[in-house]
């Protein structure tokens, strides 16, 4: 990855907490910092409830971040009022997981696309809007005859194309894709994935690709971030991550993925103990320590910092195991941490 590439989105320590009953708080996203470079696909993986979707929604300001900053093209939009988000909406769009609930069942798809244009005051006349809508439909592989059909008249794959058309019609630069293919059948999935890739090539799009299917993410992404319980535990280029997974969680996750290759069934699998802890009351220190085979008392006491480490540059991991390598000694690390705390105070 070349360093001079343009950073299009940068998040710093983004947190999203949800209040629940009894004055408790669900820490869905708890301090995620990452950068999206222009034109790349950033894959965000993690299991159900790890906060990856919440992060995506927060990123495009469907929800307001509890804390932290989100910069899009250098502009901080994390606290911008709704009225000023118009431009952001044009720049960033989202494609949703469920092709069945993401389309209003009572609005014809052509009307829906034209409505998007109307909201942003694009296109002068009705026929101009219609032309633009039809253009985008063709682009995602829908026929213009479908202009006046209702969503329920389409199959899942086609609906996902409609969802994509809705996102693309505003000419965005960044698209947050929230599990866009996980609800689709295998044979349709590949069609949609290819469509994503084609559009990226033609329109120079940047994707934040959120998914739990690691093989899909691996296929489509340039870089991958791994989330666990609201934290980004590891981040690296796709090749790097798969060849050298550092975080114990990443290692377990990758080993658990089944392979469509009957000859490889003898591979070593790391089976994790137990279940995901509750995000209401996450473990102290390292959030993964309750299931980590290498956990020590240090992991219990101290939250690991995200360190850029690993065989290649841009491989960041949040695990005490690698602190020594980074700082030289564990002691130095703790010292560094102490300083950081002092500064924070």
């Amino acid at each position, binding site marked *: 990855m070349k360093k001079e590439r343009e950073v299009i989105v940068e998040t710093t320590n983004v947190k999203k907490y949800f209040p629940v009953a009894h004055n408790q708080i669900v820490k869905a996203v708890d301090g995620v910092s990452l950068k999206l470079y222009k034109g790349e696909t950033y894959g965000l993986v993690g299991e159900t409830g790890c906060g990856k979707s919440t992060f995506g929604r927060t990123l495009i300001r469907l929800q307001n971040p509890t804390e932290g900053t989100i910069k899009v093209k250098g502009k901080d939009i994390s606290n911008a009022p709704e009225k000023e988000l118009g431009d952001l909406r044009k720049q960033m769009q989202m494609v949703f997981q469920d092709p069945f609930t993401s389309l209003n069942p009572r609005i014809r798809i052509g009307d829906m696309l034209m409505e998007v244009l109307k*909201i942003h005051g694009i296109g002068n006349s009705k026929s101009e809007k219609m032309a633009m809508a039809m253009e985008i439909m063709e682009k995602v592989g829908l026929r213009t005859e479908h202009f006046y059909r209702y969503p329920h008249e389409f199959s899942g794959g086609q609906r996902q194309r409609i969802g994509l058309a809705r996102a693309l019609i505003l000419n965005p630069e960044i698209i947050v894709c929230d599990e866009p293919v996980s609800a689709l059948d295998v044979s349709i999935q590949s069609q949609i994935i290819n469509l994503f890739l084609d559009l990226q090539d033609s329109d120079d799009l940047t994707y934040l690709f959120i998914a739990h299917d690691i093989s899909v993410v691996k296929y489509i992404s340039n870089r991958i971030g791994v989330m666990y319980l609201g934290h980004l535990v590891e981040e690296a280029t796709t090749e790097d991550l798969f060849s050298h997974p550092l975080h114990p969680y990443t290692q377990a996750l990758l080993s658990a993925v089944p392979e469509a290759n009957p000859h490889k069934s003898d591979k070593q699998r790391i089976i994790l103990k137990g279940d995901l802890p509750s995000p209401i009351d996450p473990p102290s220190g390292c959030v993964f320590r309750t299931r980590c085979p290498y956990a020590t008392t240090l992991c219990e006491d101290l939250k690991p910092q995200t360190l850029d480490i690993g065989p290649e540059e841009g491989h960041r991991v949040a695990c005490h195991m690698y602190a020594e390598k980074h700082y030289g000694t564990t002691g130095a690390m703790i010292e560094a941490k102490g300083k950081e705390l002092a500064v924070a105070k």
Partner: protein
Amino acid sequence: MNNMKQRTLTEADLRRMVEIRNRLTKEQRSLQLHKFLRNRQAMVGLVIFLIVLFAAIFGPSLCKESPVALNVLNRLKPPSKEHWFGTDTLGRDVYTRVIYGARISMIVGVSVGAISGILGLIIGIYSSYNKYADEILMRICDGLKAIPSILLAITLMTALGADIKNVIISLTVVNTPTMGRLARSAALVVKEQTYIEAMRGIGAKSRRILWRHIAPNIMSPLLVQMTFVFATSIITEAALSFLGAGVPAPQPSWGSILSEGRTVIFTSQWMIIFPGAITAMTVLGLNLFGDGLRDLLDPLSS
């Protein structure tokens, strides 16, 4: 910044699109109609309802007599050629009164259904959207719901005076909280749908989201409920008439005819049997129709 070419539509293109639209609309309509026609219960309900509606609209011009024309000395005559359903205690033609009563009862039912539906929609939508509005509106709804409906209606009728307008107001007050609750819960479900989130992601304003995207999607349960409110209003109006707080004389509502007729139930049953049967049939028809409507309006079950 992207290489989308601006494409223009020719007249022919537009014409073709209009054609497609018309064809599709027709197709979608006929599909729905087909689906509805297959639902035997709903069809029966609709037919009954339409007959009564027809009677309500055109019936009065089909009747020779006035529903309020008294002929006291000709009172309580059994059904005959001149008076198909007999005459009532003031010698009025029961048949004519039942036909005109259809009009009054329909007006009451439709108005109460429609007004409480609309109010319910507004209440539901805003309380699903705004936390403070929700608190206030729902407390008011809870309060009104907590008062037994008939009692509320009686006291309201006594307070406002016997008048068809006030019957409508009373029954609307009684039915709106339920409608509001229903609309609110439906709106809360719809609000969580991804397409609403998508609209927000696109930058749609709240008002657009509320009225263009949420409202149409909660209309089905509301419409269905409206047919039931329509039906129960007819029954409740009858109950109010029975308690002396319904549509006042001389206007004939089914309720007031029945209520008058009950005093002669031992001797002149025709005053009960005909209007009673027609009331029951109409309400039955409406309920059947409402059930059918529920299936029909569900966009996913096509």
